[in-house]
């Protein structure tokens, strides 16, 4: 443990030193520009290269534009620089997402333990943190490596970003020290602050940990969103605003929300895989029951966070279109559009795996027989919607195939390739996934309220109205009106889906108040269901890699969109196959590191039997812990 802590501190120290050195390398620390353009605001001033801009003619200030590196300015290390940064950055982001997400739901579970006075919640939250704390060290290692790679391979870009963000990057590094301090106290002080007032101190530390983590995330997000939609700079990239104007670009908040929610879903899926692994490897019924419950909780977190994610994604895409229609179309209708077919496959995998896990989990309780007849219908709807989602619109065909087909769109299936059909499919998949979730939650309960029949009728009515509305709005506005209404109709569909989810949760909360609880048998679940929990993080990881790639690639041949061109040898958008191979490489590497974390987490709970006792129990040299 100590070694891990030291390595983490060491890496952040390296990061800080690099940041400081880079500050000097950027050549602006000696000018007033640095701090003015950086953290402390005001208009940037410099005595360096004057910008070629008309607005500067009327002012005494001369502004420093973004650099214009030539191909020769990019170091050649014999391997594609983009591929190096791609792998390291993606691994850093995977682990970063994990370590930021886990404390979020750990805090909620810990709080739940306080309110229910059930120590199992507390133990589970502590075990989740055990995974997170190992991942934190690996995040730090990849973070330091990423910083080194970027400064080495893209020196002009990093010098420019250092100039634009200035002291904010120093604040970021300092926040990591704070994050490390709070994280270690929170984790290692868990048992020391377990009861009474000390527990509230511990919970407050958890809150502080999440606050610092969220600040770190939104700070780093501002770098990515600045590169996509620069703000606080003029058209040649010279800084003309303060750091707040630089940070609060049009895409900053949509990315913040999207990553916040996605991180929770991702974190839930990863710890779910941990629980599934432990459940399958459990040697006692008690351990299997514990990890079955832990897996269920993780899946609950992952799917619950996943359900609103498409809406956050929708907001992000709408803001991208509002910022630059060209950028939006490049993503959704241009060269990157085919990637959304893979996205459909991935999200379909996630929803099918999540649903399958819920259906399998219904075998834990006898009361589930009342609802099992619905499963086959839900499955049919999910599969049909999935197939609609993956139907491409325009096919790349030979002239003979086009002639045989009568055009590049299939006369019947072509209509399923456009967004209105996909919007219907996605919303129905979300509604029916919620239905699976709802009947699962109802399986071990029998309502005792007098208005049960009326309540159920109301719920059914809400489902029917929402489904009819989603289909009608999608078909009518999607196929019989122009594009403006198409976009508007998707908002109505989203509202319908959210209405079902929110009303379902609220209605069930009242309907099953003081309900009779039927016995549940944790651990009595098929092993196949545990593999569904493995499918979730694999699909989530691949999906994160995919969407991160799309987000980054919409800049096309720009490091910083419209102000700093990418003239490196890698300034083209690679083929989907190449990108897919890269995503699999980073996913497999992530899985290997996660398995290492699981092993470490398991090792920390393993106690060797004293040598003098071995002759008494030769077959059990190690004692398994469930905590």
């Amino acid at each position, binding site marked *: 443990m100590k070694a891990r802590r030291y390595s983490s501190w060491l890496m952040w120290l390296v990061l800080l030193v690099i940041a400081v050195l880079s500050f000097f390398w950027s050549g602006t620390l000696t000018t007033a520009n640095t701090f003015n353009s950086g953290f402390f605001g005001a208009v940037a001033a410099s005595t360096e290269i004057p910008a070629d801009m008309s607005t500067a003619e009327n002012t005494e200030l001369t502004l420093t534009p973004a650099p214009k590196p030539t191909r020769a300015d990019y170091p050649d290390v014999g391997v594609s620089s983009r591929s190096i940064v791609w792998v390291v950055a993606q691994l850093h982001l995977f682990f970063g997402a994990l370590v930021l997400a886990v404390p979020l739901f750990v805090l909620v579970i810990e709080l739940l333990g306080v309110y229910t006075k059930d120590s199992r919640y507390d133990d589970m939250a502590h075990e989740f943190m055990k995974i997170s704390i190992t991942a934190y060290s690996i995040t730090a290692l990849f973070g330091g490596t990423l910083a080194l790679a970027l400064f080495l391979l893209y020196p002009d870009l990093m010098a420019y970003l250092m100039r634009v963000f200035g002291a904010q990057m120093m604040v970021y590094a300092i926040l990591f020290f704070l994050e490390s301090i709070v994280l270690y106290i929170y984790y290692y002080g868990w048992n020391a602050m377990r009861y009474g007032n000390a527990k509230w101190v511990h919970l407050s530390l958890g809150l502080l940990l999440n606050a610092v983590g969220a600040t770190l995330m939104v700070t780093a997000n501002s770098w990515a969103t600045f590169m996509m939609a620069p703000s606080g700079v003029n058209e040649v990239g010279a800084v003309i605003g303060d750091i707040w104007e630089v940070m609060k670009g049009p895409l900053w908040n949509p990315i913040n929300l999207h990553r916040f929610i996605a991180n929770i879903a991702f974190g839930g899926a990863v710890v779910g895989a941990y629980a599934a692994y432990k459940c399958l*490897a459990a*040697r006692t019924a008690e351990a299997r029951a514990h990890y079955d419950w832990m897996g269920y909780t993780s899946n609950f977190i992952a799917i619950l966070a996943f359900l609103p994610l498409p809406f956050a994604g929708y907001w992000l895409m709408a803001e991208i279109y509002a910022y630059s*229609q060209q950028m939006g179309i490049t993503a959704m209708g241009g*060269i990157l559009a085919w990637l959304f077919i893979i996205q459909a496959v991935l999200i379909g995998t996630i929803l099918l795996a999540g649903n399958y896990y819920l259906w399998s989990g219904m075998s834990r309780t006898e009361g589930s027989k009342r609802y099992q007849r619905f499963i086959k219908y839900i499955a049919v709807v999910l599969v049909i919607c999935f197939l609609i989602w993956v139907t491409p619109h325009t096919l790349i065909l030979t002239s003979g195939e086009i002639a045989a087909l009568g055009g590049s769109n299939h006369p019947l299936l072509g209509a399923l390739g456009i967004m209105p059909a996909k919007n219907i499919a996605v919303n129905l998949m979300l509604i029916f996934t919620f239905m699976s979730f709802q009947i699962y939650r109802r399986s071990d309960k029998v309502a005792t309220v007098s208005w049960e029949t009326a309540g159920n009728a109301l719920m059914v009515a809400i489902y029917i109205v929402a489904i009819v509305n989603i289909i009608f709005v999608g078909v009518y506005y999607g196929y019989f009106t122009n*594009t*403006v209404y198409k976009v508007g109709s998707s908002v109505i569909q989203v509202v319908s889906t959210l209405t079902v989810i929110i009303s379902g949760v609220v209605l069930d909360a009242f309907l099953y108040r003081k309900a009779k609880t039927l016995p549940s048998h944790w651990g009595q679940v098929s092993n196949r269901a545990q593999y569904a929990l493995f499918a979730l993080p694999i699909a989530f990881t691949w999906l994160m890699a995919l969407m991160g790639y799309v987000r980054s690639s919409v800049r*096309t041949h720009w490091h910083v969109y419209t102000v700093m061109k990418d003239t490196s040898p890698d*300034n083209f958008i690679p*083929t989907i196959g190449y990108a897919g*191979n890269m995503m699999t490489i980073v996913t497999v590497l992530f899985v290997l590191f996660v398995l290492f974390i699981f092993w470490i987490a398991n090792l920390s709970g393993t106690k060797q039997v004293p040598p003098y006792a071995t002759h008494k129990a030769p077959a059990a040299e190690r004692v398994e812990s469930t905590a």
Partner: protein
Amino acid sequence: MNTGKTEEIKTSGNVLLKSMVFSLGLALLFTLVANLLPQVEGEAPVEQEIDLGTLTMESFVALGEAIFTGNGTCSLCHNDLGRAPDILALNMVDIANEHLEDERYKGNATDAESYLYESMIDPGIYVVKDFGKKGSNDTISPMPRIDKPPIELSVIEINAVIAYMQAKDGHDVTVPLPVDAPVEEVQSVEAEKSSMNTISVNTIEEVVAKYACQACHTMLGGGGDLGPELEQVGKRLNAEEIRQSIIDPDAEITEGFSPGVMPRDFAEKMMVKELEILVTFLADSKVIHHEKPVASSLINTKKASSEVEKVIAQFGCQACHKMLGSGGVLGPSLERVGAYLDADEIRQSIIEPNRVITNGFPSGVMPPNFSEQMSDAQLDLLVTFLMTQKGD
């Protein structure tokens, strides 16, 4: 919650191995999907220089079309998907004139050309109904200024796009050709193809070689007899008549020759400068200027030392085709023809040149009477030679 009992249970084999195989299999499945989809690379625009002085109106319009669908990214929105007015389906000159009459129009344009230019560098001046930014009530255009990043078209490129929009519906192109402009930097990969024929020509020999006049006409001391000889054409036609016979060859047919043989698209292909060089030369050609066959000086500076080189020189093959290291671009290069055509196909392409046309080249350009002009021995010699041309 019932947590069950503490008795030992059987685990399901090697969990680590199974979970790894399952995870890897799933990841590979996603990789398979990615590799099954169309594989297209998105190249960054390459900056290149083209000599604007060599542009013809045809290649200028082609440049505009290439920019429209390529670096200009116009077709990303201006298509039939309803994102923006479908320029390819609309008559943009008529549309421009309609918008100029609209009371909502507040710009300074006075005609279609200036309106189209203004609409590209200041798209917000007039927002087409129902295509404004969402919530702006058609007061804000979602279109970016195309002279600014990330598109950054130059004035010449914008003019090329206007020329394309005018030409595609049969309107007169009012945008002037930038013939006297200095060499400018133009970003266009797509334009490379359209400008590949724009070789700088300054002399009558180069004009004659570029347009393969001697393939049909005797002039400059050599050439074919498919068309009338032009050695002393100035004696019978004045400059205006010569100009007309080039840009509208079937208007007047010389006795003894058939209409429809001479290509009718020289007016589009030739630059004004080239046309004037040719007309001036022919109008002045009242006497024979050259005694030796000029074709040999045009086709190759090397002495025609072998029989095949003599045949190539005699029939002016290099006026249109690249072979023996040099030649024109009016027809396909023959330097690797032996690698993809057999002897019969090569023979057929000489005696029946319009039967099979190489992609990217127009039909009707190569004279169809070589079989009458060449002896069998010359034809065999040429075919045998071309068979050896495999680019080695």
